[in-house]
């Protein structure tokens, strides 16, 4: 699949934004000023961006507890996201959701979701809407290797298949669910073998390779748009941080993490690939890098300076009528 120069620049910007957002969140969390739980997506950027670069605003995605990357890839703004993570006024969810519930329905982002396996049924529903209204839209549900074992996920695959829904099941297999290895928890080791069981096309791709993800997603999404039903994509990748901030990662060797940052970094791979092939040049990428770092400074400073939500907000938004 040919990818235009503009698309490449956009993809790089998106991946880099995710990376720097996560690095910044890690730093801010360490100060103790960031409330709640955070689960970082660093290392997995090519999955979110490789998939979402095929989507338009009206397509829907749904994410997991590890949701920042999917938000950014789907077009959520970094400033309101940072405000949300800090729990401040002006946050993407008014401070009511936090990291585990960032959402922006106006961007087709149906939310991070703190229930493992919570997303796939909902994505089937978004796909139903597209199918009934004949919009040509698709829905994508991102799920982890751990989440691939949840019954709600599995039955959603059957539902999507028998209803021929335009939904893509993207399984981000980062090797672990908390501290439990996917090579144990996923029977047979591979998630992709479940595609066949539910009679849908499935493919396993290297999640450090943006182009591989992009191509696989393109095919699946195109098929779905044309009425060809659901697909499964298993993306193998590595998370650079622990399960959540605070995880001591005793189940991985320090080398493992270090090596991953060197050898399994989607950004490094992307940069090497596009510069070696002279598709983009290093200087323009460097410029983007600088821009993004500035953007993070601005977003963080703004979030830290922002007021808290009013206490009266506790009582609003529960029903449509109050």
């Amino acid at each position: 699949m040919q990818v235009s120069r503009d698309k490449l620049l956009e993809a790089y910007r998106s991946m880099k934004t995710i990376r720097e957002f996560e690095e910044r969140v890690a730093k801010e969390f360490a100060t103790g000023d960031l409330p709640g739980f955070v689960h970082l997506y660093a290392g997995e950027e090519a999955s979110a961006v490789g998939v979402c670069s095929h989507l338009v605003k009206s397509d829907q995605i749904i994410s997991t507890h590890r949701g920042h990357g999917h938000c950014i890839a789907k077009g959520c703004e970094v400033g309101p996201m940072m405000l949300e993570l800090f729990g401040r006024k002006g946050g993407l969810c008014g401070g009511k959701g936090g990291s585990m519930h960032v959402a922006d329905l106006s961007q087709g982002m149906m939310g991070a979701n703190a229930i493992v396996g919570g997303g796939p049924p909902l994505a089937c529903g978004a796909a139903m809407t597209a199918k009934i209204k004949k919009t040509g839209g698709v829905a994508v549900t991102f799920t982890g290797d751990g989440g691939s074992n949840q019954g709600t996920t599995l039955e959603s695959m059957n539902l999507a298949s028998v209803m021929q829904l335009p939904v893509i099941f993207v399984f981000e297999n980062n090797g672990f669910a908390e501290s439990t290895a996917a090579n144990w928890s996923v029977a047979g080791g591979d998630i992709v073998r479940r595609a066949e069981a539910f009679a849908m096309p499935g493919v396993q791709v290297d999640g450090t390779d943006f182009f591989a993800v992009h191509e696989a997603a393109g095919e699946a999404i195109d098929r779905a748009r044309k009425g060809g039903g659901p697909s499964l994509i298993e993306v193998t990748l590595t998370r650079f941080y622990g399960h959540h901030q605070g995880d001591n990662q005793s189940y991985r060797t320090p080398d493992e993490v270090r090596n991953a940052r060197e050898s399994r970094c989607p950004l490094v791979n992307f940069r090497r690939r596009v510069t070696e092939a002279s598709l983009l040049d290093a200087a323009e990428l460097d410029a983007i890098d600088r821009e993004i770092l500035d953007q993070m400074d601005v977003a963080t400073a703004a979030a830290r300076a922002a007021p808290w939500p009013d206490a009266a907000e506790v009582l609003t938004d529960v029903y449509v009528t109050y």
Partner: protein
Amino acid sequence: MARKLSMRQAINEAMHQEMERDESVIVMGEDIMGGLGVDWLEGDAWGGTQGTTKGLGPRFGRDRVIDTPISESAFIGAAIGASTTGMRAIVELMYVDFLGVCFDQIFNQAAKFRYMFGGKAECPVVVRTQIGGGFSAAAQHSQCLYPIFTHIPGLKCVIPSNAYDAKGLLIEAIRDNSPVIFFEHKKLYDAETEVPEESYTLPFGEAGILREGGDVTIVALARMAHMAMEAAETLAAEGIECEVIDPRTTSPMDEDTILESVENTGRLVVVDESYPRCSMGADISSMVAEKAFDSLKAPIRKVAPPHTPVPFSPPLEAAYLPDAARIADAVRAVARHGS
């Protein structure tokens, strides 16, 4: 307004009229049309286990009347997802007893979207479900469980006691932009009342006063409203005049109507078919005990099943379920107290 319909027919008519009026309304569930996968079949094979969805499929087609596999999390979640992205899904949880395989989608997803997302989501889904005992359907097909849903912020709960209310409340539920759980007592499907042909809505949070009376207030829902009326007849013959109130929706709850009545009677019996702990009965009685304390002339009595599962055998089930006789006993005790 001479036409009579059963509650089953009234519910069916409500869905017909709303699907006609609004293209975004869809209906989903197991066997709601039935026969999916049988090539030669035309029309409804079942029309739902209770026939409540009969005729919808033939009229509106399988695109909008959607049979599902047995995977309640997936298809109720799908109804919720669809309703968050532009549809208005009416989805059947065949028996409320099955909530345990899909409750997450209802209570953590549908109920919380709007709040968690800072008011930026709407989820106009209606979950229709059967409740209640009386058919020897045993422990896993006879529960009420509406206290569990009423407990959850973000869900509205509707529990009609008759055909007229059912139609108006279901249409209201379909048009409401919050998730609504609509509980249908399986012993009431055949009960008939007059029901207007035209479409109409009944507001949530407005109790019905089924009978006026100045001695004792009885609050009762669904099938128990009928038991309460039966008891009230008996008691009237004894000179005890009961005011019978049917809350109709438990979330929102019409506290005012109940409180006004108790301010007048000073005596309250709450009848509830659900399990007795953390129940609807406890909820209402506690609310009144707090807000009408000074009016109460006697302790509030709750009439409820014992704290056990629902037994199968008919005489055991009869001993288990509240009935008019037990309600009348409770009313007599309350009426006597302190007088």
